[in-house]
């Protein structure tokens, strides 16, 4: 499956995922605590510099990930333009931009396996409480494995619908999709059991 992780290898790829996530959390909280336009403007410039340090292609890719923000920026501009509180509007817009861009930066520069390793580490105290943390990593792998298959199922069902109907299938296709997914779940549970099932006393990827 395609992921949002940048194919361009940057210096930030080599920084441990845990450190990046910790820095991201601290900085995001800081962004929401300050109301000073100068600080937020500096933060936004710093984030742009961060993207630029990884190259212009990386910056362009990052800008594309911010598309969903445009309607909100437009809304803020309109709202605050009409009420005449331009400074408050700039504060909100800069904060949104910097926080989202920063979060995307961490996602773009951290490999999936490193992220999963952090998640496993975060969950590990729960194992002592008897929670099946291994089931979590197993389930993540299964979602990655089965999402493309379910998409294909949906497309195949839509084709078989259109082969017999002049109208588009629409929402009705969700019924057989869900039924197939539940059937698949039962088959996979059997395959999982054939190879030992979820055994909690087995070491996971961290060991």
């Amino acid at each position, binding site marked *: 499956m395609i992921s949002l992780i940048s194919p361009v290898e940057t210096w930030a790829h080599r920084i441990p995922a845990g450190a990046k996530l910790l820095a991201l959390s601290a900085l995001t909280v800081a962004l929401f605590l300050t109301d000073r336009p100068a600080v937020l403007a500096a933060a936004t410039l710093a984030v742009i510099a961060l993207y630029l340090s990884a190259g212009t292609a990386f910056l362009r890719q990052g800008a594309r990930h911010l598309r969903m923000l445009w309607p909100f920026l437009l809304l803020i501009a309109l709202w605050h333009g009409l009420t005449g509180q331009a400074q408050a509007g700039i504060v909100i817009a800069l904060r949104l931009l910097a926080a989202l861009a920063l979060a995307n930066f961490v996602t773009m520069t951290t490999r999936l396996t490193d992220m999963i390793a952090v998640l496993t580490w975060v969950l590990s105290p729960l194992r002592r409480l008897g929670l099946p943390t291994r089931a979590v990593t197993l389930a993540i792998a299964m979602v990655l494995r089965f999402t493309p298959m379910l998409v294909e199922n949906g497309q195949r069902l839509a084709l078989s619908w259109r082969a017999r109907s002049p109208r588009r299938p629409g929402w009705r296709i969700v019924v057989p999709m869900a039924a197939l997914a539940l059937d698949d779940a039962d088959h996979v549970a059997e395959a999982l059991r054939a190879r030992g099932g979820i*055994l909690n006393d087995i070491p996971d990827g961290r060991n």
Partner: protein
Amino acid sequence: MTGVELRDIGVTLAGRPVLQGVSARLEEPRVGIVGRNGSGKTTLARVIAGLVAPDAGQARIDGADMAADRRAALATVGIIFQNPDHQIIFPTVLEEIAFGLTQQGQRPRAAEAAARAMLDRFGKGHWAPAATHSLSQGQKQLLCLMAVLAMRPRVVVMDEPFSGLDIPTRLQLMRYLDGIAAQVVMITHDPGQLRGFDRILWLEGGRLIADGPPDAVLPRFEAQMREWGGLDDLAHLAG
């Protein structure tokens, strides 16, 4: 006590008897189980692999009850299902093969090395990082075979593993199968896939109606299938 031992196996699913009084001791290296759709052969495959506990009788491999002792089962018997999409759990080839080995208690690093060795044995070392979803049907089936063989089972149960595959792919997979040291129990409705097998069981209506060498069982099976093919029994609903 060696081999697969079935003693008076009975299985009832949803109130309907699926298997009745099936007994056999299987010690031959290649055993085929034939029968029509609904004859109970898939259920028998699951009983042998220990995925279904029989309601009556006993199923054992090398003296151990596979349904009760799942840990012993992991080391003893592997099963390959008809649809590889129901079997492959992981997004990449290497993870899929290594999984069974970590299940057997190997450390992740050792399991990965063993998985790579298995890929190399089949000349498929370059498959390791490939997405399982992108494999062809035949490649998926080969992956399932490698994932099961990596666990070094004594018995490999295969439930219609070649259905839906083209003839060259089927022949290639059958050639891979020839090189396997483990005992193979293959479920199929196609006698053509059982060339070179040592013994054939024929299931009909949940009962064993023939058991013997291929020359004795398969010609009768084929003749019977052709005779039934002339009838219209698609009309009957199960139940």
